Every structure is written in C-alpha cells, then in structure tokens.
C-alpha cells in the first residue's frame, strides 16, 4: 500500500475508533486458535429453519411414540396435553375465542425450532441424552399429535425444513426497531 494511502486509511481507522462507542480492535492481541467446522460437528448443535445444521438421521411419529412414552410423557402427558400450563405441547388455535392456547402446534413458527430445542434442552432432566434419530422420531411424534404431519411421514434433514407450521406467518419481526 502506498504510504499516503496507508496513512489515510490509518487515519480513517482512528477516526472510527474515536467515534465508536467501544474501543477499536486495532491494538489488541489475536489469540483465537483456528478450528475447522468438522471439528465442531459434535459441538455445534444449532439447527436453522433452512435445514442448516440438521444432523444425519431420520424418524417417524410411529417410531417416536415409544421414545415419547419413555422420555417425555412424565411431564407432557400421554398425548401432549401436559401436566401443567407450561408443559402443554399439543392443541390450541390462535384464532380461538378468549386467550389462545399457544403450543408447538398452534404457535411455534418453524419445525426446526422444535428439533433444535428438543435436541439441546430435552428431556429437561437429561438434556442431550437422545440420539439424533430419537430426536427426529420424537419431533415427528409431537408434530403428528398436533395434526401437522402423518404418522409415517419421515423427518430428516431435507424433509423437516419443508414442514409447514400453522402459525408460520404469525410473527412480526421487530428487530429493525432500535
């Protein structure tokens, strides 16, 4: 870089640093250790609506009933009706009279959210103890209980993002408001 241009760009950086709320990063150490995405395969559990991050494996609701009965029903009850207001995961209608019951079926906008949450946080007393296949199976079962997919419909990394959730268009993104 020619010296003059370089001075100009350094000046620009300093100006940004001076006006930026937080300190500039120009004078700090760089201590991050490079790592590859393949080394993060067991660490990065994030599943996105477009299917990015969904693992290999698959499952159907028919397969999921046994897993659900063993690992989920104690809190969410036999058919997802729950044992408390917070554990209901089936039913509801956003357009119902009175206060709508908001569940996975009536409220959640993305099927990936169900997979992502079950995989990372459920069952609450032993999170991350289900295999990826079991997560697909249980998610399929919960979606089946909500009448969103069929009992033998296979969920996998390519079919799950295509599941249409009833309230997918029910949200207004406020993130542009600061």
């Amino acid at each position, binding site marked *: 870089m020619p010296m003059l241009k370089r001075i100009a760009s350094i000046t620009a950086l300093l100006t940004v640093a001076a006006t930026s709320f937080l300190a500039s990063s120009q004078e700090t150490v760089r201590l991050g250790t490079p790592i590859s995405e393949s080394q993060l395969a067991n660490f990065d559990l994030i599943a996105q609506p477009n299917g990015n991050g969904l693992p290999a494996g698959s499952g159907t609701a028919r397969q999921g009933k046994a897993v659900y009965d063993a690992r989920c029903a104690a809190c969410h009850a036999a058919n997802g009706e729950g044992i408390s207001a917070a554990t209901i995961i089936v039913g509801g209608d956003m357009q119902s009279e009175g206060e709508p019951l908001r569940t996975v079926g009536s409220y959640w906008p993305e099927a990936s959210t169900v997979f992502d949450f079950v995989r990372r946080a459920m069952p609450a007393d032993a999170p991350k103890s289900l295999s990826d296949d079991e997560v697909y199976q249980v998610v399929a079962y919960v979606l089946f209980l909500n009448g969103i997919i069929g009992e033998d419909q296979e969920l996998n990394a390519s079919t799950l993002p295509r599941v249409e959730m009833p309230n997918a268009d029910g*949200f207004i993104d406020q993130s542009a408001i600061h």
Partner: protein
Amino acid sequence: MTNKNLEKVAGNGLLNRRHLLGMGLGGAGMAVANTVLGADSGPLQIPYWSRQPGPGASPFGDRSRYAPQLERMSGSPNPTYPGGGASRSPLQHLQGTITPNALHFERHHAGIPDIDPAQHKLVINGLVRQPLVFSYEDLLRYTMVSRIYFLECSGNSGAVLRRDTPDPNGTAQSLHGLVSCAEWTGIPLSTLLDEAGVLPEANWIAAVGADAASMGRSVPLAKAMDDSMLALFQNGEPVMPGQGYPMRLFNPGWEGNTSVKWLTQIKLTNGPVHFRDETSKYTDTLPDRSSLQFTFPMGVKSLITSPSGQMSLNQRGIYRVTGLAWSGSGSIRRVEVSADGGRSWADALIDSERHEKALTRFSIPWEWNGGSAILQSRATDSAGNVQPTRQSILDERGNIATYHFHGIQSWSVNNAGEVRDAHA
C-alpha cells in the same frame, strides 16, 4: 406542621426538588420529636464499641449484623423445570444505582452450570473466514472496556399487566425485581468477530450458552458490532455463576435473555435461528393474534422504590420519594412524579450519573398530610420516549402476552399510611 417556606410544585404535597438540595427540609420534616435523640433522653454517652478494639481485617467482607439481611426473592422449585426460574432483586431496600453482585437478579432455564474455566471454550464459527476457539486464559489478555449497564428480564413487571386487580402483597421486588445494574467489564464483541473475519452474507449472530439447556438467542450483527461485549467481570470481580461465569454475552439495553450466560458459541448466520426462546417465549401476542418477535430494546421505564408496596408511613410529614429510571434506548433525560394519580406532575431530582442504558436514581420531597395518595413516576429518555401508562399499553396490545411491559407503576397510600400496589 406545614412549613410555608416549602414550595408546593404539584398536587397532594409534592415539593420542589430543590428542597432536597439542603434548602430547608429540616425545619418542617423533622419537626416531630424523636424519642431516641430527643432532649428528654439525657446526656449522650460514648458507646461501648468506642471503648474496645474490634476484630481485624478479614479475607472476605460480610454485612453488619445490624444491617438488613437483604435477599433475593425466588419462586419455589418446579419438578418439570429443573433449575428453571428466577430470583428478584430487593429494589426497595437498595440505594444508588449499582446492584451488589450477590443481589443481582437471576433467570435460569436449566440451572447454573458448574463451569471450570480451564475447560471452558468459546467458539466463533459459521459465516466467518476462519472459525476460532478461545480459552478463558486467552480472553483475559485482550483489551477490555468497563461500562455501567442495567440488565432487565423482558418478563419483568409482567404481572402488573397480567393482573386485572392490583396485587395486595406486591412489592417493588416481587413485581419489578427482574432488573439490576452493574459495571460490566469485558471485550468488545466486535474485536473477536473481526478476528474471525465476518463474511459479507452474515447478518445475525447465534449465541449459545453452556448450561444444560444450551440456551440460544439470535442477535442482529449490527448490535454485535456496536456495543455488545463479552463480559468477564461484574462490579470488579469475575461474573457470578448465576450471571454466566466464566463469561456471558452482554447486549446493553436489550431484553436480558439475549445476553446469553455461560457463552460458549457464537455462530455467524444469515437470518435468525428462531430458537425456542425467541419464538415460543419472549414474544408478545397482540389482540389480533399476530405476535411481536425480536423486540429488543427495553422501553423507557421508572419505578418509585420508596415508598413502595408493603411499606408504611408512620407519621405525617416530609418523605423522600425515590426510585429508579432506565431506558434501553439511551440515558434518562427527565423523571416526573405525581402524588395524585397522574393529575399533576413535578420534576424529580436526578441523584445519580445519567449513564446510557443504566439505572438512574431520582428523588423528590413529598409532604404526606395523612390523606390518601397515588404515587407514580414517569420517565423520559434521551431519545424523547415517554413512559406510557399501564392502561395505554393495555389498550394497545392487550395482555395475552406480558413481556416488555414498561408502564407506569402506581402505589396507593391510604390514610393509615399503608402503601400498596394500585392500578390508576
């Protein structure tokens, strides 16, 4: 008892705030004889603690045994939600603006993980030129900044909107205790993101904690590059386990849940992940059944902390009405107080520094004449936002969902001096 030299500036006994500045409160407010300090109690003696040496220095300080043993208020454990729940700061017993670390509110989604910092990792991956992993030791070597910021759970005060009737047992702590304020020290997040090299298609970050729920939130990249920090210290000491030890994300002014604790991963993404805690939770369903999502800055808000719910005024006279104000969109420009349910207002004195996105202390003298009163405060922030009434929020968005409630709090005072939650 009324002193004619005291200037009334609004209805029902509100006095000019200058009277708090050493301009003549003493003569009127303290006119009632004090039985401990009065002339009838005989000559003053040197107390016994001035006649013998006390214990020496100690490794870790403790409160005076005579001081109020302040505690957070937490709910009862829920077997279907192990480790979940919240604890609330005792706002009505605190002064100034900084919350002591052990009293900072908490909200956990799967309990507090017992993290050995030597084994903790922070990963930055996704849409970056080079995914990176950082150790705690690495991070301590970076340039850090220190800023005073409030943190507020977006569920704070929700019961005030939810309930059709005032809470007869409500206190500042029970109704509004999910807000606290600390000096946070850490690394500007932009420093670490720049080091990994953000790719042009990235426009959000996904932040994930190392708790049992691996709680995750999506944050727009613009915020992450603006004033978000990786916080490592809280009021000078390592962040408390309940606040994310050894490190947390801190998004100044934004709903508390986005400041992911026990931060272990930041993934650069195109679009938000739609985590459970930004879809199923922390979203606000409106009367038309659409739901607001990604409501980030906490609205301008204030609260009288004294007198407040469950307190009693024991005698007529002048009281220091004081409270806290804050805004996720800037600093506090003005706080007004009403003693007549909002019919008339007077400007309060701002007692503290007016930091951006930090708790700010206000006060105003008020002469209680023994009658009934409704005390309220109303804050205005540096962006010109004015705190709305509870009723106007109710009219606008109903109460199907009660996150992000920042309406005016009313405290009623009856003629017995009892202070209670009120809707006015």
